[in-house]
């Protein structure tokens, strides 16, 4: 049996293949630079090792009914002021640790996107919704459809003032970023655009990548990075220091450093939370990098993002492998803006009606 039949298919853009080949020739396949990129994209037999992580998907927050559309998925809402839209689930390259790799693929039509734009601006939502995250998949691979969606938002949801777009295309294949992509960000008065990149290793900031970052910035787009802590890619202090220093020099804001989620086939990427906290604290302790460049170490749980502060972990079980995390999310509030949302089994409510969530930790070697 081809083990990959059951797994996320390996898909790597010709651009990245060339870069990997050049790194292999120059530094060898054992180099941290080659591994820092290759591990993110190349299939590894570690993926099929037995592990505690059994979930194929991480969290569910679908909004299934949008105006005239019955969407299977493609719209998520976890927060009051923002909504997440996934117009396409395909990417130029597959990341082995992808959060949405097991989602059923569905590409939203122009008609669906128009209905979503109207939904965002309807009487029920226009008072609350302020920003939208367009992600996927990689929305930048279908720039004309995204431009259509953004135009629809401008027309039908003037309450949306911030549009964030999540993309890895500047790293996966910057040659595909041309005027069709830049058009999305032009002449949309009243909208602040933010581009969310995910750069996990400093070597991913190729010259071509830096060039498109500068072009986006010249259009007034704010660029920030939310990265994932990946064992064997960036789980050492020096790599993270170089990464955050380089991002700062490129005027890219460091936002979240995510703990790698508990999902099937990616156990080998997951450090412990303790290790993540040590690394993020180590970034600024001893003056390694400025606090201006330091990311927030955060966890994507069943109920949303939790940034780790001193008192976030309130209980442990299973020999410390499962952590109970305190949040300020309220079930009542969430049902107010997403009546379809169901409290996951991993959650309990505290005495104030706030949601606490159990989270499976990773392991250090």
């Amino acid at each position, binding site marked *: 049996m081809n083990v990959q039949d059951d797994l996320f298919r390996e*898909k790597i853009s010709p651009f990245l293949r060339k870069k990997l080949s050049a790194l292999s020739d120059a530094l060898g396949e054992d180099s941290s630079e080659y591994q820092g990129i290759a591990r993110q994209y190349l299939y590894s037999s570690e993926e099929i090792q037995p592990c505690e992580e059994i979930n194929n998907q991480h969290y569910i927050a679908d909004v299934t009914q949008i105006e005239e559309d019955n969407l299977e998925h493609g719209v998520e809402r976890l927060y009051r002021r923002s909504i997440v839209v996934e117009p396409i689930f395909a990417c130029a390259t597959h990341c082995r640790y992808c959060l949405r790799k097991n989602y059923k693929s569905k590409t939203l039509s122009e008609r669906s996107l128009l209905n979503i734009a109207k939904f965002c601006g309807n009487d029920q939502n226009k008072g609350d919704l302020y920003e939208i995250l367009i992600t996927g998949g990689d929305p930048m691979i279908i720039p004309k459809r995204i431009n259509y969606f953004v135009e629809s938002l401008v027309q039908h949801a003037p309450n949306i003032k911030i549009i964030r777009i999540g993309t890895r295309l500047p790293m996966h294949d910057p040659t*595909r970023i041309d005027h069709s992509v830049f058009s999305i960000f032009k002449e949309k008065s009243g909208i602040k655009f933010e581009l969310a990149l995910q750069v996990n290793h400093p070597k991913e900031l190729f010259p071509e990548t830096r060039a498109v970052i500068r072009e986006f910035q010249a259009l007034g787009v704010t660029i920030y990075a939310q990265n994932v802590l990946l064992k064997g890619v960036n789980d050492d202090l020096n790599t993270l220091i170089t990464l955050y220093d380089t991002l700062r020099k490129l005027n890219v804001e460091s936002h979240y450093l995510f703990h790698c989620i508990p999902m099937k086939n990616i156990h080998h990427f997951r450090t412990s939370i303790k290790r993540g906290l040590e690394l993020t604290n180590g970034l600024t302790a001893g003056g390694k990098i400025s606090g201006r460049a330091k990311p927030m170490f955060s966890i994507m749980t069943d109920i949303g993002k939790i940034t780790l502060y001193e008192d976030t972990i309130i209980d442990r079980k299973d020999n410390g492998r499962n952590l109970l995390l305190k949040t300020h999310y309220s079930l009542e509030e969430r049902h107010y803006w997403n009546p379809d949302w169901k409290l996951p089994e991993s959650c309990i409510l505290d005495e104030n009606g706030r949601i606490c969530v159990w989270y499976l930790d990773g392991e250090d070697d």
Partner: protein
Amino acid sequence: MYTLAKRNVYASTIAEFLNAQLIGDDVIITHPTTYSDMVEHSISMFEAGIQQFPDVKNILILVEKAMDIDRPGISQIVSDNPRLDYFRIVNEFYIENIGQGIHESAVVEEGACIGRNIFVDKGSFISKDSVLSNNIKIMKNVILNGKISIGNNSIVKYGSVIGSEGYSFVLDEDNIPIHFPQIGGVRIGKNVWIGSNTTIEKGFLGETVLGDNVKIDDLVHIGGNCQIGSSTMITSGVVIAVNSTIGDNCWLAPNSSISNDIVIGKNVTIGMGAVVLKDCESNGVYVGNPAKLIKMKESPKK
């Protein structure tokens, strides 16, 4: 107006974009071609009547029904409407947008109201009374003269004149033709396509009106105060004299001529070279000189 952009796109990405299944290998596709010119890494759609498959590998074909192909390297995507899906793929993945902005040689008079994402190419002229909504492309050497309004997502191709002075003369006591002052305008809906070297006269008092989604081919003339209904298609060489009304969803075949003050209903087909001298009722098919009704069509489904 369109620039081909060669890009590396996986066949699986194209299938996902169409919400369809990929049959065969996940090959890299770099550009579209015609079926007969397929080369490695190209995409095309299967054309009816062609019996053999291209003798190349690593290609992707859009088909209406999955075909048994005994050679490797030919991947397929089944589509209910290959032509429409092929257009969507080409447009999304392999065409680079032309830019926004106004070329330095174009003249936009002060007072013109210009929306977002407007492209005005070399040598064009936009009058001070023009109102352009958003996402409009004005190609080279276009004249917008007088009170012109154009709706979202419309295109005016090379050398066309919108708002030209109408051919409207009155005879004085000595039978000398005197030009009737033309002070009306032209109102163009959204998603309208106006072909090259087309002339649309302004209304002499009121407006000449083109409804939403009207598509006009190259070399068409539309007289002042005409009213063209939504989604009507006007092909090359059509001449419509002043003050005529064409309903929604009509098809005017090449070189047909419509006399002045004619009323054509909805969903009417005017045949090639027809000369329309009388009103035409909805859903009729008219051909000949003078044009005569030859059959009735079914009303379009709503």
